[in-house]
């Protein structure tokens, strides 16, 4: 009898723990870049409500937008950080910041977070708002932000008006567009294996720089809007993939010299996010309205992840293979989490938000 009692007690004690472990991701902090309502949505809403401008800070903004957009929308734009082990998110940046990208560098020996926002580049700072805007009026609409994998002092920001580079840890910024025929640059990708080699995805194709971004040459896909660039982490000379708007996915197996289209869904599918690979792990592609596609680490046998259509448009993907987790940021369905390689998905907060980037981070990243 005692044994039975102990087993039952044990079960009652263990079961909740087991349950919560099932719900609990195994990361300390998740950082999310949330875009927030587009200016065109605000303008159209202002037009609808009969005002000249819609005050992005007004208390009932989200309610007003929800009314006109007809969808669940809870979070304005900004940097959101999840509480440890839960799907509760807190805004950690300026309110209503349109944020598309974030990166971390060790510029001063300490981890330092950088935000790429519509207002420019921001970093944690010892002032009442907690952030310093390090760029000026000439830099806006940051689409993507990266640090140089070989030099922590170097940051790359791409914008709707060209590429800007800081070589002194974000203190000064210079535009660096020599050779670019199209200044709308959606994404920038420093090659993690080759120093000073960068790829830039523009509205008019894929560009490459081999001198740290000083000069650019058109590499492939002229006239095609590029949205995402990724490299298989362990391959040499390198397998690369490029996601496009309306022209599907392209692949290079010769280190980025030649790109060919890859059969993935429909020919005209738009690919907004690429991630994964390494150690025989899958490569993932987030698409417009089609959820997630995946293939082997070397890009063989692309197929749609069953059931991922319900994620809608996937705008970023964060695979955490060591923890058996796959996270997806979506256009209008917040963060989604899968514990079984994408077979099933569960909402993981930021309901209705346009999540553009997800990063596992540390609390001290916010330290000025």
């Amino acid at each position, binding site marked *: 009898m005692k044994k039975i009692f102990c087993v039952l007690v044990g079960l009652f004690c263990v079961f909740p723990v087991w349950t919560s472990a099932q719900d609990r991701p195994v990361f300390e902090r998740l950082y999310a870049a949330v875009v927030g309502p587009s200016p065109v949505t605000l303008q159209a809403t202002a037009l609808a409500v009969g005002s000249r401008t819609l005050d992005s800070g007004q208390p009932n903004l989200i309610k007003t937008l929800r009314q006109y957009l007809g*969808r669940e929308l809870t979070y304005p734009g900004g940097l959101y950080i999840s509480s440890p082990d839960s799907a509760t998110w807190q805004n950690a940046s300026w*309110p209503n910041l349109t944020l598309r990208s974030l990166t971390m560098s060790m510029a001063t020996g300490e981890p330092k977070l950088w935000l790429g926002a519509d207002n420019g580049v921001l970093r944690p700072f010892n*002032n009442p*708002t907690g952030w310093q805007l390090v760029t000026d009026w000439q830099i806006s609409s940051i689409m993507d932000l990266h640090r140089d994998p070989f030099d922590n002092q170097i940051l790359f920001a791409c914008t*709707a008006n060209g590429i800007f580079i800081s070589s002194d840890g974000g203190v000064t910024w210079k535009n660096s567009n020599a050779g670019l025929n199209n200044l709308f640059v959606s994404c920038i990708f420093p090659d993690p294996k080759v120093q000073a080699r960068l790829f830039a995805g523009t509205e008019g194709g894929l560009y490459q720089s081999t001198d740290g971004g000083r000069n650019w040459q058109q590499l492939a896909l002229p006239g095609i809007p590029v949205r995402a660039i990724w490299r298989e982490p362990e391959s040499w000379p390198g397998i690369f993939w490029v996601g496009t708007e309306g022209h599907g996915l392209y692949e290079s197996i010769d280190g980025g010299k030649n790109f060919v289209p890859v059969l993935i869904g429909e020919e005209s599918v738009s690919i907004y996010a690429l991630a994964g690979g390494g150690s025989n792990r899958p490569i993932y592609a987030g698409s417009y309205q089609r959820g997630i596609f995946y293939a082997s680490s070397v890009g063989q046998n692309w197929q749609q992840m069953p059931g991922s259509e319900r994620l809608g448009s996937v705008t970023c993907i964060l695979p955490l293979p060591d923890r058996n987790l796959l996270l997806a940021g979506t256009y209008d369905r917040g963060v989604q989490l899968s514990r079984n390689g994408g077979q099933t998905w569960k909402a993981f907060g930021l309901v209705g938000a346009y999540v553009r980037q997800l990063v596992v981070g540390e609390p001290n990243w916010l330290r000025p």
Partner: protein
Amino acid sequence: MQSIWRKEARLQSLNIFLFFSSFIFVSGAFPQKDFEKALAERRQILIAHLVEKESTPSFTAVTARYAANERLAEANRMLSQLLQQPSGDPVYGFNLIATYLFGQHNMPDSLREKVRKVFSANAFLRGDSEDNQLRYYATLLLAAQTWPEMPAEQWFNGKSAAENWREAAAFVVAWMNNNVTYGQAQFDSPELLPAFVACLELLHEYVADEAPFGELEKKIVTTTKSKVAAPNLRTRISMMLDLLLIDFALEQIDGIYAGAHSYDTEPAVYSPRQSANAALFWLYFGMGEMKPTMEALVSAMSGYNVSDAVYALATNRDPLGGYAHRERKRVRNQLRNSYERTTAVYKYAYITRDYILGSVQGGLLSPLQQHTWDLTYLSPQDPRPALFVMHPFFDPRELGAFFVDEPALLFDELNKFKGRYNQGDKLVGGSPYEQIFQHRNTLIALYNIPEKVQFGHISGFFSKGLQDWNELDADGLSHDPEWLFCRAGNTFIAFRPLQEFRVNPMEGGWRYISESRQNGVILEVSTPEESKNFEEFKRRILEVSKVDFKAGDNSVKVKYTTAYGDRMEFVYDGNSSTIARLLNDLPFKYDNWPIFDNPYIKYDETKRLLQVRVKNKWRALDFTNWTVSERAGSFTEELGR
């Protein structure tokens, strides 16, 4: 108004001297204006109205109370309330700094400190539109100047007061330079003009000519990009104000901003007396109705007065018939679908005392709220003296051209939008499938809308105030294309649909609808000075004018001979995207289109020199050296010499 030229006789004698003195510019040649007294009275009327009637807490109510030195306790309470929930919106920031600057002498120390802390703890955002960015940087500049000792650690954006001042000044200088070199992007907006004017007037009132941050900063203000020195900031701002108000004065009729606009709203697009610019017209020119807005209050509180020349342009239009007016503006940066980022906007207007017919060349030039052409006529009793046709366009191309997010995502979102923007019955917005050809009092609009485009019809507005319709049958049934005639006061209107059309009643007027994707209209307008009377005008249109319209094979073509014999040929070929305009068999080109040009005003681009002449009164704005000069010239002297 007549008193402007009260000292005309004295000036005429002065003219002779000046004319023979090799056009020596004499500052202050114009007399002091009596209308300044009237302006001061209107300022008081506006402030008194806001003190008495505006009881809901707002920056307008607070500023008026401080300005009137009345109900100060109430003003303090209201301001405390407004400071409890600060917003990052540039409008909030601008209104706050304006209230502070105008009212600080009446604020208790505790409130002043609370305002300062807003600029410390509240993150202000810049926005993506020209008006919001000017608001943001005007606010930042004046706040930095107000609290020059605040270190970076106390500013919301982590920049020192000196850094903020320098950046804001650089933006303002660059914005002004762009406007006088390429033309304004958010141009001629009846809704946004008061915002631009208010920003500049607040700056004009309070900006220091040189940065108040030590010797190094005092020397020059530099822009990061060009390193161009920009001293005399206040003078520059004053000149920019002159430019905006000259622009407005030239193209308004009865206080209504006529012709094409970068940004308009519904219902103001067909009820233009409701537009925000009416506030400015009432304040500065004493006509129309008072609008108690914050922008109007800032204008009223500022010490800036319109110059004689601007006043004369607005109120003393030449009685000698009509004249053509040309302007060049700038397309809002097209991020996608175009390699050229500063595509020009070619504005054209035919201006008379009785009407203005104005247009831009067509195409998609501004996001969402473009107004491509209209006829605005003098009809004081008509609340909606506007006539126009447009193509209601909505697709990812517009979204992708002007906004950075993925066009497909934006399109999905706005396709489900429960507002007017995505609706086929909207009346504001540009279209890439609309092209305009205007010659003086005649305008041809052609539409060549591909099958794949969502809305294939064109839509327009006629006011109920229009008189003497003889063929209009607003029964909602389809009618064959034929001339429609109507009149508004002294404005005679002939409107020719080029395809079948129908007319439905709508608020305050009739909605014109024509379903054909290859479509167009012709509008010819006249006055008794040109056509004796309405019957004679109709006769000439029916007997003299000729219309030859061809549509098919993705091409639209019209040949039109006007009632006075000018031949206009207009081809809009969708296959080759060719648009050809021939006037009397010669190509009508937009090459060398001036920033400003009409009988009253010339702009020399090489010198960046704007000259305004009304009768013998001259005003020259030199945007290269940033100086202003006035003189009295000869009556026979022509502009541009």
